[in-house]
């Protein structure tokens, strides 16, 4: 279980995440929803070791993740696909995937893993030698996710995978994510496309101004008035 307790993150004097607690169980898919600037990405980045929390605990099956240097997190089985994807643009698809298998835990069986990813994203198989930066946003997102999967993670953290993608590509991507989920991998997802996100997740957290403002099963959150409020504001306030 991936567990976050009383996480607080500051950038200088700006309080980005305020005493947030949440958890993701093994094999579970969880969505983290909220308006821009609510602090969702900060939470993900803190788990991935890219941001040092001011206080709070991040633990994976009891092991303290926050104490590890950033490059060690992925060895623990937590792979992050950050916003903006973080792909190695000038490198080819295949090189990006090979880099995904850099962690020790992933070195054996990397070839099979790569085949699986090509099966998952047939578009990538067609373009293994192409430089990633010359590809479309959707394809780049596939590379980023594929690369994360190459490290054989137990937990996959996705930050806005559909950002800037055409609807049809988004659909394709989520179809693949559904297949990935069915393999028993746990996923923590930030998704601006709320319906898509909730469609995939079993459970969801709502976040506003750095705080968790709601938590429930996806089905219930979808009809919760707090959801619309999170994005479109309280109707009628003037």
């Amino acid at each position, binding site marked *: 279980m991936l567990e976050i307790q009383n996480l607080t993150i500051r950038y200088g004097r700006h309080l980005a995440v305020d005493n947030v607690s949440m958890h993701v169980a093994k094999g579970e898919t969880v969505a983290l929803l909220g308006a821009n600037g609510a602090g969702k990405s900060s939470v993900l980045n803190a788990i991935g070791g890219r941001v040092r929390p001011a206080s709070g605990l991040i633990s994976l099956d009891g092991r303290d993740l926050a104490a590890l240097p950033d490059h060690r997190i992925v060895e623990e089985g937590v792979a992050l696909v950050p916003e903006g994807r973080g792909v190695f643009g000038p490198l080819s698809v295949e090189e990006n995937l090979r880099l995904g298998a850099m962690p020790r835990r992933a070195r054996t069986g990397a070839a099979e893993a790569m085949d699986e990813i090509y099966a998952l994203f047939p578009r990538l198989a067609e373009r293994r030698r192409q430089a990633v930066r010359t590809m479309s946003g959707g394809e780049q997102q596939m590379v980023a996710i594929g690369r994360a999967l190459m490290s054989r993670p137990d937990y996959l953290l996705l930050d806005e995978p559909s*950002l*800037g993608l055409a609807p049809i590509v988004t659909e394709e991507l989520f179809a693949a994510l559904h297949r990935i989920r069915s393999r028993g991998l746990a996923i923590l997802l930030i998704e601006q496309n709320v319906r898509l996100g909730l469609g995939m997740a079993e459970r969801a957290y709502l976040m506003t101004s750095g705080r968790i403002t709601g938590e429930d099963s996806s089905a219930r959150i979808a009809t919760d008035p707090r959801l619309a409020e999170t994005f479109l*504001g309280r109707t009628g306030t003037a």
Partner: protein
Amino acid sequence: MSILDISGVTKRFGGLAAVSDLSFSVKHGEIVALLGPNGSGKTTMINMISGALVPSNGQIRFQGDDIAGRAPDRIARAGIARTFQLVRILPSLSLIENVVVPAAFGRRRLWGDEALRHAASCLDRVGLKARCDLRAADLTYIDQKRLELARALSAEPQLLLLDEWLAGLNPAELQEGIALIRSLTHDGISILMVEHIMEAVRALCPRTVVMAAGRKIADGPTADVLSQPEVIAAYLGEAAHA
């Protein structure tokens, strides 16, 4: 009459069009919200208006002149001021110096006591006058935002571009911020604001333009726009259609 007229503006980065064929206008004294989900091209549009980016196509007319592609300093002197998405203060300068800058290099080129008086009045407006000798780097986040606004005001702009100026404020601060912006419209400053805090948008902006994937998908009275299915779909996903 419009103070800002945007017609057919496109911005391509490499092959990707961040803004495509966008047109809308802002009238004198009007306060308009520019909305859209993450990555829909709002900040890119603001950057083109302020001169930080050069449009690939199209015209941006400010008070009748096409300013598309002009250097930002010329645009600033023409009467457009802005704040930045990630607050940008001048950390090594004092508050008053921060605010003197646009006055000194703006249309009136104020200097000396006159500039200081002007800057002080701008600081006063955002409630920072008492701390005008502090170094900007030592301010809290909200005060940095205030300072940034005071700096924009100091240019005495006709058009003010606010890029998520209210983001990151707590509820109490938010109310203060809203009141502050509202007070500006009384001075006749036209405002174009990118904002994610809908509460503020509803409170401040009678009119809203919504972008998605670089295109304009809605333009009209805020309440109407926010209830349009396309807009909800843009925010909450296509699944809303189903």
